[in-house]
């Protein structure tokens, strides 16, 4: 043993310990700030940090955490944070805090310095956070906003467009040579004529006249024969057969004729169809002419999404970032094993071996919170004071078998706030729920975004009911916002009367805004929607700004186009009707001729058959009488 080194070593060790004790506060402060900056991605400031060895307590004063999305604001600040570590578990490297007190909590307060981290630290923060699922989810939501939220045109542009609309002259855009309907009518006329010519040609090809003539000639042969002897009957019968055969031919021709007629009738356009087509062409011409008038065309669908969408995407993303933070430091357990793997800051992996009934490596059993919704940079003078608690912040929820929960509430006059939630990471993938109810919010506190389409409101009260559930990477967020008793100020556009008029017109009589915001689904199938009572009212009013004038112009243009095409249209219809009547007449005549011929054959055949029958009867009777006479004569000779 080198005993001579014992005392120097002891002295050096004591010096190290004393040095650490003296500078522990500064060292801890630096470590605390560095850890905070890596957690929040923005500057973290601490006024003072004091430790006490007697009870292992730490007191932090003047904590400010900058908002990484708005570096002139604090995400949160706290006047005092105090807690004490339990000494015995510390020997086993377990940091157990039974009760932590956080007083003077405020959020979204104004900062005097810019809260952005230096580029190196931002790069490091982004590197550690870029691959988190919720980080990707917030990016998806932001992208969704960019692609789906329409940009409304500037109100001044609407005012200018409205003025320009008054000065439009429709005569300047009408050029008869450019009217398509006129050209189309000529085409239609030629088309009708050629079609009817082709129909007539098809009918001529049937050779109806030749068939009728042939039948007539056969029938003439039949009528020429007189049935006055038995020999003639035979010839007549032959002629009857020929006539019947001609009848079959004529009937076949009639069938052929009818089928052609029916096939053509499907192709034939009616006057109604022609008129409709002309009307369509006229409309197309009017639309084309309206385009030439350069009337502003603005899509005013889903105005509330355009006005409030980005605001709520940012708010939902803020909520998600709190959950992300909770998941980063309390990751859900992937397997049932007791072993927990966490990547180490040095090389390798840290493996935890928790033991049942032993406390986890890190545990804050209870945090008591108190604060106010007011604060520096906020327009409200008196905020709502609130208090609440956060329970069971731990590195191993499974071992503790309790989720992290929080409950914050406050009430002052008509204002009420209530936040509660659960971060349950006992099983994979973990479920996080945040509920918020805020009532009696002033319009200032509500944070209505600045937009040309929104007036400034001097009065009004807001109410928000929100719920966010994150199961794994699946989000289900629903927010209902009610703003009532709104009174608009008329100061925003006092230097531009036209714009002020439009805004006044748009918001006249609107004292309530009711909005439903929802974000649901997974990262790759995210749905974000904002709907409100404003959508219908504002959309109709915005359309009406131009609507009446546009309708007037449209009617005038339609009238002009109709008068330009009137004579040609009448000419077309007249020509169409003449050709159609001529065609109809031809068809009817031929059909009649065929039918007449068939009837004539039928009649004449019947007549000739009757003649033959009568002749046969007469001849029969004559023969009978002859026989009777002969018989009588023979009988007389017998009795003589």
């Amino acid at each position, binding site marked *: *043993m*080198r005993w001579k*080194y*014992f005392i120097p*070593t002891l002295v050096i060790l004591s010096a190290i310990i004393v040095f650490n004790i003296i500078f522990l506060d500064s060292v801890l402060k630096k470590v605390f700030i560095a850890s905070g900056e890596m957690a929040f991605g923005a500057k973290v400031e601490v006024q003072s940090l004091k430790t006490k060895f007697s009870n292992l307590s730490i007191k932090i004063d003047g904590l400010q955490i900058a908002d990484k999305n708005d570096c002139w604001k604090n995400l949160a600040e706290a006047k005092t944070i105090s807690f004490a570590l339990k000494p015995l578990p510390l*020997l*086993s*490297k377990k940091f157990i805090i039974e009760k932590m007190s956080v007083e003077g909590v405020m959020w979204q307060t104004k900062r005097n310095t810019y809260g952005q981290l230096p580029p190196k630290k931002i790069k490091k923060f982004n590197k550690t956070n870029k691959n988190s699922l919720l980080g990707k989810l917030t990016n998806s939501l932001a992208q969704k906003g960019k692609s789906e939220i329409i940009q409304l045109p500037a109100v001044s542009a609407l005012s200018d467009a409205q003025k320009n609309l008054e000065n439009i002259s429709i005569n300047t855009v009408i050029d008869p040579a450019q009217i398509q309907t006129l050209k189309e009518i000529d085409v239609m006329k030629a088309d009708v004529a050629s079609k009817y010519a082709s129909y007539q040609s098809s009918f001529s090809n049937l050779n109806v006249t030749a068939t009728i003539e042939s039948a007539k000639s056969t029938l003439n042969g039949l009528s020429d024969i007189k049935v006055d002897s038995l020999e003639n009957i035979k010839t007549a019968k032959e002629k009857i057969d020929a006539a019947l055969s001609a009848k079959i031919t004529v009937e076949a021709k009639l069938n052929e004729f009818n089928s052609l007629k029916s096939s053509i009738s499907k192709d034939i356009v009616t006057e109604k169809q022609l008129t409709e087509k002309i009307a369509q062409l006229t409309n197309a011409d009017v639309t084309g002419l309206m385009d030439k008038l350069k009337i502003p065309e603005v899509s005013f669908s889903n105005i509330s999404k355009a006005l409030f969408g980005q605001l709520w995407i940012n708010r939902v993303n803020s909520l998600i970032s709190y959950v992300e933070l909770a998941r980063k430091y309390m990751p859900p357990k992937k397997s049932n094993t*007791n*072993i927990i*793997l966490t990547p*180490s800051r*040095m*090389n*390798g*992996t*840290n*493996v*935890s*071996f*928790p*033991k049942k009934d*032993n406390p986890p490596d890190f545990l804050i059993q209870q945090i008591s919170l108190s604060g106010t919704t007011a604060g520096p940079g906020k327009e409200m003078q008196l905020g709502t004071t609130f208090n609440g608690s956060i329970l069971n912040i731990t590195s191993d929820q499974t071992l503790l078998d309790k989720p992290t929960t929080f409950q914050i509430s406050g009430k002052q006059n008509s204002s009420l706030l209530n936040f509660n939630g659960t971060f349950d990471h006992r099983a994979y993938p973990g479920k996080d729920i945040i509920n918020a109810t805020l009532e009696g919010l002033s319009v200032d506190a509500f944070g209505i975004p600045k937009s040309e389409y929104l007036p400034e409101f001097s009065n009004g009260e807001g109410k928000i009911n929100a719920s966010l559930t994150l199961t794994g990477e699946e989000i289900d967020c629903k927010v209902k916002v009610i703003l009532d008793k709104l009174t608009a100020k008329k100061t925003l556009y006092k230097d531009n009367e036209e714009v002020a008029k439009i805004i006044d017109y748009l918001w006249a009589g609107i004292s309530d805004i009711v909005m439903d915001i929802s974000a649901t689904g997974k990262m790759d199938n995210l749905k974000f929607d904002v709907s409100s009572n404003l959508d219908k009212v504002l959309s109709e009013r915005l359309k009406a700004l131009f609507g009446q004038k546009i309708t007037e112009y449209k009617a005038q243009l339609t009238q002009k186009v109709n008068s330009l095409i009137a004579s040609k249209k009448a000419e077309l219809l007249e020509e169409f009707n003449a050709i159609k009547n001529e065609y109809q007449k031809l068809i009817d005549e031929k059909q009649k001729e065929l039918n007449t011929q068939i009837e004539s054959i039928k009649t004449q055949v019947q007549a000739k058959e009757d003649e033959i029958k009568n002749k046969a009867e007469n001849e029969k009777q004559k023969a009978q009488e002859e026989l009777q006479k002969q018989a009588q004569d023979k009988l007389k000779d017998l009795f003589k």
Partner: protein
Amino acid sequence: MFGIKLLKSIVNILQSEISPNQIAAGAVVGALIGLTPVSALHTFVLFLIVIMLNINISSAILSATLFRLIGMLLDPISDYIGYYLLVKNSSFTGFWTTLYNMPLVPYTHFNNTVVLGSFVVGIILALPIFFLSKKLLIIYRIRFKDKLTKWKIMKIFNLTNAYNVYDKLNK
């Protein structure tokens, strides 16, 4: 500069009259300190051992420096060994759980794969390092010490203040 200092340290140890056992023990403890990537509780204990026991401090420092460099190269192997012992081989889980929940032991960072792996590598290499360094030192002193003393460079080293201080410290 670092290379010259390292060379000088090696030469100084080789030329001294210190017992080979003390130098070899220093090399072993230095190796254990050097292989571990972080300053954990066991590093501190090893450091105390070096100071309090009759172990050659210079050889420990030299060995720690050398094995810190070697340790960096061995990190992937150490990580694998540590991962195998801590995670893959479940027969040790009970033992690790007991250690993990004992007072002070967690401060050794034994639950880190690289720390445990490199410590195990150090333990495995302890005896070979001890016997090899001792053997090499004895061979050197018998065969080469006198010859090397006559070299000019050795005379220069002997003249330096650092050597004098070092020599004093070892006497």
